[in-house]
C-alpha cells in the first residue's frame, strides 16, 4: 500500500503494470446484463440510476475505496459514454483521488454477459494478481482487504483456489433476499469450501448428490445466504472464463468449476459476512429494499448525510430518518413521516403526506398528495391530489391532478400522465413507443398492441416485457413488488398443506369418503395403491394397458378378489376429481365436468375389467355405494351411467338387472334409484324400439 501508486491515474506505464502484484485491484462491472429496470435503463445505464439521490456507481466506488482498493477497472457496456462522462466529471478521476480508476468500454454487441466481459478483460491482459470482482450495483461497507488476505492464506494450503465469494446471511422472508436470486449452498464447514451451488427460485425440491455427503462427512446446507456479487478472484479466473465460452454468468462459472473439480482441481470458497452490509440491487424490489437499508443506516458509512460526493450536496438528518438536502421547501401541514429523503430545491405542497420514500432534486409536489413507499427521481412534477404507493417514478415525469398510480408501477423518464389517470398495479410505462429495431423486442404483434399511447392526453406507452426464454417465473417474481408481504408466507403455507396432504395420502385417504371400504387391510392398501396409480396415470397420461398391468400387480400383491378389484377401481376413479383438487364434490354440474375427462381417459382400463355381466354388476354396485356415501355425487350418477352406457362399457342388460335388484343399502332406494329412474325408462324404451326394429 505504498503511496507512489496512489497518484497518477489512467496512464498505465509499464513500470506500474509490473508492480501490479502489490496493488489491490478491483474490477467493477458496470452493467448487469439484464433488463430488470426496463424501461428506465433504455436511456440511462443502471449504474447511474439514483439510489437515495446518488448514482449507484458512486456507492460501489465508495465501497471499494473504503475497503482500501487502490486501482479499479470500470468495465462499461451499455451506455458506456454516459458512465465515462459521469466519472470524468466526478471526484473519482481527480488526481487527488486515493483510488485510481480506468474505464474500459465495450459495445453491447460484443459483450452480452459477465462471462464476455471477463473474457475481454483477459484478452487485454490487464490483470496479473488477485483481484476483487464486483458489480456496480452493489452497495457494501465490507472491509475487503482481510478477505483478500484470507484468500491468499488459503492458497497456501489449497493451490487450486480460484475464488472466494462473499455471502451475507439473511433468513428466508427478509427483505434483503431477492426472490430471483435464491440459492442453496452446500459447504464444508471446516474449511469453507463450496461443494454445491443451486439456484432455487423455481424449485420445490432440492436435490444433492449423495456422493458429496459420502466424500465429506460433514456438510452444511445453507439456504440463508444471499449472494452479494462480490468475489475475490485468483488471476486464473480470467483464463478459465476464456477457456469455457459457455460460462456466461457467475452461476455457470461456479457450476462448471464444481463439475470439473476432480479434473482441474479448482476450488471455490465462501466467506460469510459478519456484521457488515452488502447487497446487490438486482431488480426493482431489491432497489426498494436497499434504498430502505441506506436510509435506515444499515449500510453506514454509506448514508445520505455522509455523502462525500462534491456534485451533490449532503443531506441533513432529522428525526425518524428524514433527510433533506438544502433548498427543500415544505408547505404548511405537509408531513414527512419517516424514512424519507428529499433532494435539493424540491417543493412539497400543503397537506402532502410522504412516508418511506425518496424524492429527488428539483421536484415539485402539489397539495394533498399521498406518497408512500415511492421512489421519485429528479425533476418530477406531481400535481395536486395524486396518490402514489409503492412505485418508481423516473426523471422528468409529470403527473397531472388526481393521478393514481397502482402498486408496483415503474414510470419511465419523461412520461406525462393526464389528469385523473389511474394506472393499474404492476404497470411499466415509458415516454416513447417501443422501438422495433431493439433487439429485445422483436414480436410484431406486440408492437401493434403496444404502440398506442396509454391514454389520450398522456405521453405514455405501456412497456411490455419481452418474452424471454425459460424465465417466465423470474419475471413473475419481479412483478411481485409492492404486493403484500404475506404473499410469501401464504404460498409457503400452501406448500405446507400440500406436504401434509401428501403425507396423509401415503397412508390413508380421509378426505374423500368412498363408502364401504373393506376393513380388510389388504383391500384398503390395494385401494390406496390403485388410487395412486390412477392419479399418476391420469396426470402423466399413461396408457391404459400399462395401468392395467400396474393394477393387476397390486391385485396380486394384496391378494384381493376380482370382485373387489372391479369395485375398488371404479370407486377410485370416481373419487379422483376430489382427490386431485382436494375439494369435495359440490353437487353442481362442475363435478361431472371434472369427472368426464377422467372417465374418458380410463375407458380402456374399464373395458379391461368390465367384460362380463357379473363385473358390470360389481361396478354398478360400487357406483351406488359411492353415491350413498357422497350425497353430492348422486346428481352426477345419471350422467356417469349414460356415459358408460354410451361408451359400451356397461351393457343395457347389466344396468337393467342392477336396477331390478334391490339395493344393498335401503337409503339408496330413495336417492339414487330415483335419480336414475328417467335414464332407466329411456333405456327400456330404447330397447323396445330396437327390438321392434329388429322384428
Amino acid at each position, binding site marked *: 500500500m505504498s503511496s507512489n501508486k496512489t497518484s497518477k491515474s489512467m496512464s498505465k506505464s509499464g513500470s506500474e503494470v509490473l508492480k501490479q502484484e502489490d496493488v489491490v485491484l478491483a474490477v467493477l462491472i458496470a452493467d448487469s446484463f439484464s433488463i430488470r429496470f426496463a424501461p428506465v435503463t433504455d436511456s440511462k445505464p443502471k449504474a447511474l440510476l439514483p439510489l437515495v439521490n446518488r448514482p449507484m456507481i458512486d456507492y460501489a466506488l465508495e465501497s471499494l475505496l473504503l475497503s482500501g482498493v487502490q486501482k479499479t477497472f470500470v468495465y462499461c457496456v451499455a451506455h458506456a459514454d454516459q458512465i465515462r462522462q459521469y466519472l470524468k466529471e466526478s471526484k473519482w478521476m481527480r488526481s487527488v483521488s486515493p483510488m485510481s480508476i480506468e474505464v474500459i468500454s465495450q459495445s453491447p454487441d460484443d459483450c452480452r454477459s459477465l462471462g464476455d466481459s471477463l473474457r475481454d478483460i483477459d484478452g487485454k491482459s490487464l490483470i496479473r494478481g488477485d483481484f476483487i470482482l464486483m458489480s456496480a450495483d452493489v452497495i457494501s461497507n465490507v472491509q475487503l482487504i482481510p478477505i483478500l488476505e484470507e484468500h491468499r492464506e488459503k492458497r497456501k494450503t489449497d493451490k487450486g483456489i480460484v475464488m472466494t465469494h462473499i455471502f451475507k446471511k439473511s*433468513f*428466508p*422472508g*427478509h427483505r434483503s433476499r431477492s426472490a430471483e436470486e435464491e440459492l*442453496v449452498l*452446500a459447504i464444508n*464447514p471446516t474449511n469453507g469450501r463450496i461443494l454445491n451451488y443451486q439456484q*432455487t427460485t423455481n*424449485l*420445490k*425440491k*432440492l*436435490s*444433492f*448428490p*449423495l*456422493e458429496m*455427503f*459420502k466424500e*465429506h*462427512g*460433514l*456438510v*452444511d*446446507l*445453507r*439456504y*440463508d445466504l444471499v449472494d452479494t456479487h462480490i468475489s475475490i478472484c485468483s488471476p486464473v479466473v480470467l483464463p478459465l472464463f476464456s477457456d469455457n465460452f459457455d460460462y456466461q454468468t457467475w452461476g455457470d462459472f461456479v457450476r462448471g468449476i464444481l463439475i470439473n473439480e476432480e479434473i482441474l482441481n479448482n476450488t471455490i470458497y465462501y466467506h460469510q459476512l459478519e456484521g457488515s452490509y452488502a447487497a446487490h440491487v438486482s431488480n426493482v424490489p431489491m432497489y426498494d429494499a436497499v434504498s430502505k437499508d441506506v436510509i435506515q443506516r444499515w449500510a453506514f458509512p454509506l448514508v445520505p448525510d455522509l455523502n462525500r460526493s462534491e456534485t451533490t450536496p449532503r443531506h441533513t438528518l432529522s428525526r425518524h430518518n428524514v433527510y433533506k438536502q438544502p433548498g427543500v421547501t415544505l408547505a404548511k401541514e405537509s408531513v414527512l413521516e419517516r424514512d424519507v429523503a428529499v433532494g435539493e430545491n424540491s417543493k412539497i405542497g400543503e397537506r402532502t403526506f410522504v412516508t418511506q420514500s425518496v424524492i429527488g432534486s428539483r421536484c415539485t409536489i402539489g397539495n394533498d398528495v399521498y406518497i408512500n413507499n415511492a421512489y421519485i427521481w429528479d425533476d418530477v412534477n406531481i400535481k395536486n391530489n395524486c396518490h402514489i404507493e409503492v412505485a418508481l417514478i423516473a426523471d422528468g415525469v409529470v403527473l397531472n391532478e388526481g393521478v393514481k398510480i397502482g402498486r408496483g408501477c415503474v414510470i419511465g423518464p419523461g412520461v406525462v400522465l393526464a389528469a385523473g389517470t389511474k394506472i393499474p398495479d404492476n404497470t411499466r410505462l415509458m415516454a416513447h413507443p417501443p422501438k422495433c429495431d431493439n433487439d429485445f423486442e422483436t414480436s410484431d404483434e406486440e408492437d401493434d398492441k403496444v404502440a398506442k399511447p396509454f391514454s389520450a392526453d398522456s405521453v405514455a406507452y405501456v412497456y411490455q416485457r419481452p418474452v424471454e426464454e425459460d424465465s417466465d417465473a423470474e419475471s413473475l417474481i419481479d412483478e411481485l413488488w409492492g404486493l403484500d408481504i404475506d404473499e410469501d408466507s401464504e404460498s*409457503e*403455507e400452501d*406448500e*405446507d*398443506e400440500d*406436504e*401434509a396432504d401428501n*403425507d*396423509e395420502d401415503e*397412508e*390413508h*385417504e*380421509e378426505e374423500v*369418503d*368412498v*363408502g*364401504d*371400504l373393506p*376393513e380388510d*387391510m389388504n383391500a*384398503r392398501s390395494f385401494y390406496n395403491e390403485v388410487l395412486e396409480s390412477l392419479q399418476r396415470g391420469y396426470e402423466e397420461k399413461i396408457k391404459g394397458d400399462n395401468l392395467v398391468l400396474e393394477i393387476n400387480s397390486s391385485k396380486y400383491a394384496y391378494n384381493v378378489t376380482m370382485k373387489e378389484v372391479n369395485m375398488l377401481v371404479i370407486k377410485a376413479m370416481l373419487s379422483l376429481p376430489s382427490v386431485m383438487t382436494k375439494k369435495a364434490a359440490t353437487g353442481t354440474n362442475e363435478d361431472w365436468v371434472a369427472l368426464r375427462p377422467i372417465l374418458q381417459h380410463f375407458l380402456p382400463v374399464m373395458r379391461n375389467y368390465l367384460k362380463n355381466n357379473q363385473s358390470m354388476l360389481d361396478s354398478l354396485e360400487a357406483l351406488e355405494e359411492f353415491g350413498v*356415501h357422497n*350425497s353430492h355425487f348422486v346428481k352426477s350418477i345419471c350422467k356417469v351411467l349414460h356415459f358408460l352406457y354410451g361408451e359400451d362399457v356397461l351393457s343395457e342388460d347389466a344396468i337393467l338387472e342392477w336396477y331390478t335388484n334391490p339395493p344393498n343399502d335401503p337409503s339408496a332406494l330413495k336417492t339414487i334409484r330415483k335419480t336414475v329412474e328417467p335414464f332407466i325408462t329411456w333405456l327400456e324404451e330404447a330397447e323396445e324400439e330396437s327390438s321392434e326394429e329388429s322384428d
Partner: protein
Amino acid sequence: MEYQAVIMAAGRGSRMTDLTHARPKCLLPICNRPMIWFSLKMLENAGFEEVIVVIHEQFRAEVAAIPSKYGLNIKLDIACLPKNEDFGTADSLRLVKDRIKTDVLVISCDLVCDIPLHNVFDLHRTHQSSVTALFSQSSPEVMSTAVPGPKTKFKQERDLVGLDLQTPRLVFLVSEADLTSENEEELSIRKSVMKHFPQISVQGNLLDAHLYVIKKWVCDYIAENRSFTMLKGEVLPHLVRKQFIKIQRKKNEKELPNADVSVVSLNTTNRDICSFLVDVEEEEKIRSYSVWNDHRGDLRGPYQDHNIRCFAYVAKEGFCLRANSLSNYCELNRQVIKRWNTMFPNMEITPPVSKAQVGTDCIIGETSQLSDKCSIKHSVIGQGCNIGEKVRITNCIIMDNVTIMKETTLQGCILMDNSSIENSCDLKDCIVGHTVHSNCKSTNEVLVDADRLLEI
C-alpha cells in the same frame, strides 16, 4: 417417576451369527460381563431403579440372575417374547405398552456408552421433544480392525443425519443403505423444509446409539399403529417427516360428529398422528405467551410452531459403541479394557495370581488357571479357563471354560464357551467353537461344531 426405561434385548445378532448360536446376543461377554450388564449399569448410574427388559423367554432365568450376580441394585421387570419369534423394536415396545406409564427411554442391549444420560434427558425436557435420539461422533479407529472369521467386505452402516444448526432439531434422517438400495444418486429436500430450517448440517459420520427418549403419546401411537416394526428404520424417520405437518386437529373435532361417519375415519388402526398429541392447546398457549424463541431469523414462533418435534443429542466426546457386528464386538472388548478404570471406577478387576506374562490391557477371569510360561496380551479370558505352557495369546476374546494346550499361538481369535485347542496350534483371526486338534494352522476361518455345520 419421570421416565421409565426399556432395554431391547431380544435382538438376534444377525450380523454375528457365528457367535450367537450358543449364547443370545445380550449375554455375549464383553470383558467377562454379559453385554446387557453394561446397559443395566448405565441405567443404574443414571438413577433408574427399575427397568423393563424385553427378551426371549428361554433366557429369562439367566437375565434375571444378572443383577445379583454382578452386584447391581436395579430391579428388572422382564417381558418375554415367545421362543424363536422375531420381534422388531417397535413390536417389542408394543408388547410392553401396558407397563409404560410415562415418557420412556428405549435402549438396545448392545450399547456400551459412558455419555452422561442426563444430557439427553435435559434436552428432551427443555424442548418437550417427541423423540430425542442420541448420536455420537464415532471414533474413526473402529473402522480399521481385523475381524476374525472369513474375510467379508464389511460396511459400516451409516446414516445421513440432517440437524438444524441453531437448534438440535432433527430435520431429516436417511440411512445410506436405503438410499443406495433404491439406486438414488441424490438426496432431495423440500424447499419448504429449507425455509423452516435454512441452516442444515448434514452429518454422515454420526453413530446412532439407538438410544431414544420417547414421549408417552408416541408410545401410544406406535402401539396403535401396527404397521411399525422397527423404531430406527420406521418410526423415527416417520416422526421426523411428520414434524412439518400442519395440525388440523381442531377442525376435525368440530367436523367429525356432524360428518357422515365413515368406515375410513373410524378405522382405529390408522388414527391420525395428530389425535395422539395431548395437551397441545395448553402448550401452544404457553408458547404464545412466552417471549422465548428457539431460533432467530424469521418471525415464526418457537419451534416453527411445530407440535411434533424430534431432537438429536450429539455427543462430542465420550465413548459410545454398539456391538451390532462382529468387528464392533471385538473392538468393544479392546476399547472397554482400555477404559475400564475410567468407565467403572471402584470396580477393579483382580487378575488371578500367576507367574504368567500378562499385559496390562488384559482381563482374566478369577477362576482361570494360567500356566507359568504363557504370555497374554490385549486379550480377555473368561472364567474357568485352563491355559497351558508356552501359549501365546494376542488380541483374543476367550469365553468361559476354554482349554488351551501347550505351545499354541492364538492371534485375533474368538474362542467360544467350552472349546478347546490342543497342542501346537497356530490360529489367526479364527472363531473357534469346538475342539481344534494338534498342529492345526488356520487363518480367517470359522471352526465350530461339526453337528452345527450339518444343521446348516
